[in-house]
């Protein structure tokens, strides 16, 4: 079994790194860690980077997950190859570009590009935000799935993810105590559906709602509250149509041994208990 410790980073292609940086600093509120020729590294917490924009096609996306050590990485590669996934070993240069010791890359069954990494870098200096959005760190991703039941089996049987709750047949999956690190979303093609950053308080969610509205950033869902994780949330659109989420108050699963996934109906109140409706954002369809 592939033991994922946590989600480490997201890599997003963008044809316009300058606009991406403007959005990331003046709207989203991340800290620029490093500007490369063809890459922009952004911080959201103690880690050296958690989001990297690379010059290129917005369809070029990757999600990095941390595994324990080199041995685990090699075992994971063997497991994946055995199952018929094409596994690429990362070169030393590519590892340096990801600020990790070593990594492998492969596609999940829907075709999402996943990277498993060893020893992602932390930063000695604390995170210092570009605007007071209250961000405490990169926390989870929404991942498109062309077949949620099949992909749930991949993440829970090949990897160590556990289902915390389901909305219809959409699983919210955890790899540690946090309610979910991967949320699958039914979609016709692969892709990252949203990138979540945690913020400190309710106040931050509502402040950002007014702040971003004033700057005409499209608010696509919220302010709202997920009845599943208990988190208060705000979803909004960034460069190349990528959806970002702020949330606060995600539950932790206290008793790993006895937790049973709850089943929520596939209806609007399962996504927001306050009554907000998604606008301009594809909510997972149940078909």
């Amino acid at each position: 079994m592939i033991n994922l410790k946590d989600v480490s980073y997201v890599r997003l292609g963008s044809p316009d790194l300058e606009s991406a940086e403007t959005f990331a600093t003046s709207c989203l509120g991340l800290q620029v860690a490093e500007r490369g020729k063809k890459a922009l590294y952004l911080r959201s917490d103690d880690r050296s980077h958690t989001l990297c924009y690379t010059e290129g096609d917005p369809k070029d996306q990757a999600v990095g997950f941390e595994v324990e050590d080199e041995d685990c990485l090699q075992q994971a590669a063997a497991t994946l190859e055995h199952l018929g996934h094409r596994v690429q070993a990362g070169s030393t240069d590519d590892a340096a570009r990801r600020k990790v010791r070593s990594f492998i890359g492969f596609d999940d069954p829907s075709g999402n590009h996943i990277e498993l990494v060893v020893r992602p870098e932390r930063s000695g200096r604390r995170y210092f935000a570009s605007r007071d959005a209250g961000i405490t760190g990169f926390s989870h991703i929404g991942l498109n799935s062309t077949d949620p039941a099949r992909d749930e089996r991949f993440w829970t049987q090949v990897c160590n993810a556990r289902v915390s709750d389901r909305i219809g047949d959409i699983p919210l999956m955890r790899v540690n105590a946090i309610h979910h690190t991967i949320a699958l979303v039914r979609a016709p093609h692969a892709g990252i559906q949203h990138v979540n950053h945690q913020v400190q308080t309710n106040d931050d969610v509502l402040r950002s709602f007014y702040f971003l509205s004033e700057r005409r950033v499209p608010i696509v869902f919220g302010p709202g509250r997920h009845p599943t994780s208990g988190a208060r949330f705000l979803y909004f659109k960034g460069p190349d149509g990528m959806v970002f989420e702020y949330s606060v108050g995600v539950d932790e699963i206290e008793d790993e041994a006895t937790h049973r996934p709850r089943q929520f109906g596939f209806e609007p109140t399962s996504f927001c208990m306050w009554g907000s409706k998604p606008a301009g954002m594809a909510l997972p369809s149940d078909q």
Partner: protein
Amino acid sequence: MKQDSHPLVVSVCYVRLSASELHASARFAADIFGLQRVAEKNGEIAFRSDNRFRTLSFSDGLSQSSSIGIEVWDEQALDQVEKRLSRNGFAVSRATAHDCQLRYVQAALLASDGSGNSIDLVARPTQSGRRYFPSRDAGITQLHGVGMRSTDLDKDLQFWKELGAEVSDWVGDIAYLRIDGLHHRIALYPAKQRGLLYAAFEVETLDNIMQNSYFMQERQIKIVQGPGREPCSKQIFLHVEGPDGIIFSYVNGMSEMGPARRPARQFPLVPESLCEWGSESKDVPELSAGVD
């Protein structure tokens, strides 16, 4: 045995409003805002928000005037209040038995503040034996306080100080007045005309504030301001436009003052002094902090 000293006034205990369209107002209070309709008597429709017999009532516009009910400690406190107010030149008169009946209280003093707002100082307002059971799940737990329009701030402040109220904070000349352990129950807003600005009802949680916000949006009920948060009191609010331009507010999370006294703090009259999240009021001058 030595008796503890007690305050003169205890709570904001009701809001009586004259309505231009009685039944439309009643529908708003019950079906939209979410209070419990309890009685219709003498051309007046009453509503509950908590264990009290009623905290809001609408009367036919022509027959009666609006007033705010302030509960005093007891009948002796009522005498004391009467002396203090009349000594300082405020108009006060004893309520008749009929007046008291209309107000569901045992004794009352009908007063006017410096702006001419009718303030009823009442003893022994009626409680209800049955628990509060509202018409919809808006999460309301009590009538929390009121915002008053003031045309003569100095005189109004003197009026409330005679009752034992103290200023907790200032935003420009907006005064937040404390009568118990909470930051404020009464707020005075400098205005061109007197009258009630808002009646604030407390809800259980932030969830209720947000749910009510989407409830109003869906029904195209005008939200005057919010969801927002007052930086002075830390109170979360949603100001909804009610009948005859009166604002009905849902509030939650007001800070307590604690035993240590501190001087009133001065905040500038700018929008972020009235909402730290960034919500603004476009059409109500008292809430827009001088921004047109």
